[in-house]
């Protein structure tokens, strides 16, 4: 128990805090939102922020704050669904390719590379073009766009680990392929892939928002920040709020995920100390020295 607490204490909380906040807001959205996001009030169109409506209202009289809060939930759910599916497909395909090796692996690598050739959003848009716009099409399309990178990573990990002696030893001892994979290879794969995915989540939220902005993702009346933004564009002059609020929400969420990714990736090159701190340290050192020389002469 104590070990878990210690591990939790070492996590980068300054970076995780906004992400945790995002998740909490998303999870408890129905409790936090004062109004149901779809409720329209024609008597309260485009109101500025006030006590009744903290962020004001939109062009249909809907409470902006509630919509933003619910939008967080929609983003989180959509992003998690896509990420889970893409991870699952990617890890399975990639691990299979790495484990099997030989010509099959070669063919699969080529296939994965070809898919990676095309920018992810283009793949997603192509799928949406084929199967039409809609929430589930968007989820499927993004999954199709996102799995390839994880497949590439999984394959690389499995391919490099599989040559290790301990795998061979396990085979000799009669372990089944599945057992070897789950017990020995999967942890390696997951440790690499999960770290990447946690930072990738930001890009995914952005992709969902972009598709919704183009009206090809989350469809109204379900609130989603990108979709709210495109709706607000027509009212840019009168009520820029409608555009600014969801935009800022999106930016903040993406910043948090980017910081998380940076935290994992950044090589620690030491920075020079800021001047004030340096002067203080130097003074401390001088005092230490004086005290010591006094001790040495007395003694």
């Amino acid at each position: 128990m104590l070990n878990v607490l210690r591990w939790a204490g070492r996590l980068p909380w300054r970076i995780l805090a906004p992400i945790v906040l995002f998740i909490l807001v998303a999870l408890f959205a129905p409790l936090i939102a004062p109004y149901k996001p779809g409720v329209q009030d024609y008597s309260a169109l485009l109101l500025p922020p006030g006590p009744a409506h903290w962020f004001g209202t939109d062009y249909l009289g809907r409470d902006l704050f509630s919509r933003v809060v619910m939008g967080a939930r929609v983003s989180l759910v959509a992003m998690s669904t896509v990420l889970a599916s893409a991870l699952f497909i990617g890890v399975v395909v990639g691990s299979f390719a790495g484990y099997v090796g030989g010509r099959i692996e070669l063919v699969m690598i080529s296939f994965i590379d070809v898919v990676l050739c095309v920018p992810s959003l283009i793949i997603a848009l192509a799928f949406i073009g084929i199967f039409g716009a809609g929430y589930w099409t968007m989820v499927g399309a993004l999954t199709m766009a996102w799995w390839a990178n994880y497949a590439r990573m999984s394959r690389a990990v499995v391919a490099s680990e599989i040559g290790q002696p301990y795998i061979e030893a396990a085979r000799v001892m009669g372990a089944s392929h599945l057992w070897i994979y789950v017990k020995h290879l999967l942890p390696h794969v997951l440790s690499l892939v999960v770290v990447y995915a946690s930072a990738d989540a930001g890009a995914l939220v952005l992709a969902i928002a972009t598709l919704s902005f183009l009206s090809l993702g989350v469809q109204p009346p379900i609130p989603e920040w990108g979709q709210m933004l495109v709706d607000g564009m027509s009212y840019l002059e009168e009520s820029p709020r409608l555009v600014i609020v969801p935009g800022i929400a999106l930016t903040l969420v993406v910043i948090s995920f980017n910081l998380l990714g940076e935290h994992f990736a950044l090589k620690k090159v030491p920075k020079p100390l800021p001047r004030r701190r340096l002067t203080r340290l130097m003074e401390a050192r001088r005092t230490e020295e004086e005290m010591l020389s006094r001790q040495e002469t007395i003694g």
Partner: protein
Amino acid sequence: MNAQAQMASQAVLQIRDLKIDLYTETVCVRAIDGVSLEVAPGEMVAIVGESGSGKTVLTLAPLGLMPEGVSIDIIGSVKCRGNELVGKARSAGTALTRGDVGVVFQDPISALNPMKRIGPQLCSQAMRKRGVNRAEGRQIAIDLLKRTGIPDPVDRYQRYPHEMSGGMLQRAMIALALAGKPRLLIADEPTTALDATVRAQILELIKDIQRTEGIAVVLITHDIGVVSSVADRVVVLYAGRIAEIGSVENVLTAPVHPYTKGLLASVPEIRSDVRGTVSGIPGSPPDQSHLHRGCPFSPRCALAIPDHCDRIRPVLLPIPGRSEGDQAACHVTNPAMKDA
């Protein structure tokens, strides 16, 4: 002006009461704790010490050649050919800009820019420091490559670092250091990263350059065996202080300081019994993040007098009965301390 003062004013490198603190985000280390040293023109001084003894910091820090991200506080005076180096900003290693000093680094493969050819670097250095034009610079570069024993210098001029062997690259780096016509060459562990066979060659080259060009050399090494073949004087550094200093012959044949004795004893001799014991010095190098009271070697010293050696700082004093330059800082083994 008496002879001593005259000698001092001619000294290529003059270090007085130098103290150097290194500050990083996590720790403050006193790398050099009161060192005074002079290097006369044309002599080779070896600085010997373990890792952490401060031997690299001693000469490189005043020149501004410390790694990025480390803040340095230098107290005292370091003069190169009479020009004061301490107290100026990091970017003004004036001795370097003027070309008075050339530096040879430890691992030539990583110390040379992989994207630059060898020759043009030499050429532009020569042009900048000697004020010659490109054609002359190129010729000087080729001559330097020849001088440092690189075969087929005209071909090697165009090469990239990854196309040359370690030993060849170190020669090229020495050539680069010589491009500015320096009066002082600082060689920081020049042979540590090289094969054993090449080591002797490089040391010979450095010795040869010292003799023929009359360039003073500061040879930094942790390997005391290297010292005996080439150096004139040796400085034994421990915990940022000079433990012993003197002519190579005297120090190596009749060491005074217990640390020096320990260092020499730990070098296995080719004649010693294969099954004999290998002696080392018990304990480990001290933590430099705090200042030391008394003698920093006392925790590991068999001769240490309790409540004396660990309380009063031993001063570097001349050893009686020996030439003037031979000094040791030990309460116990230096007879001069007893009179002090």
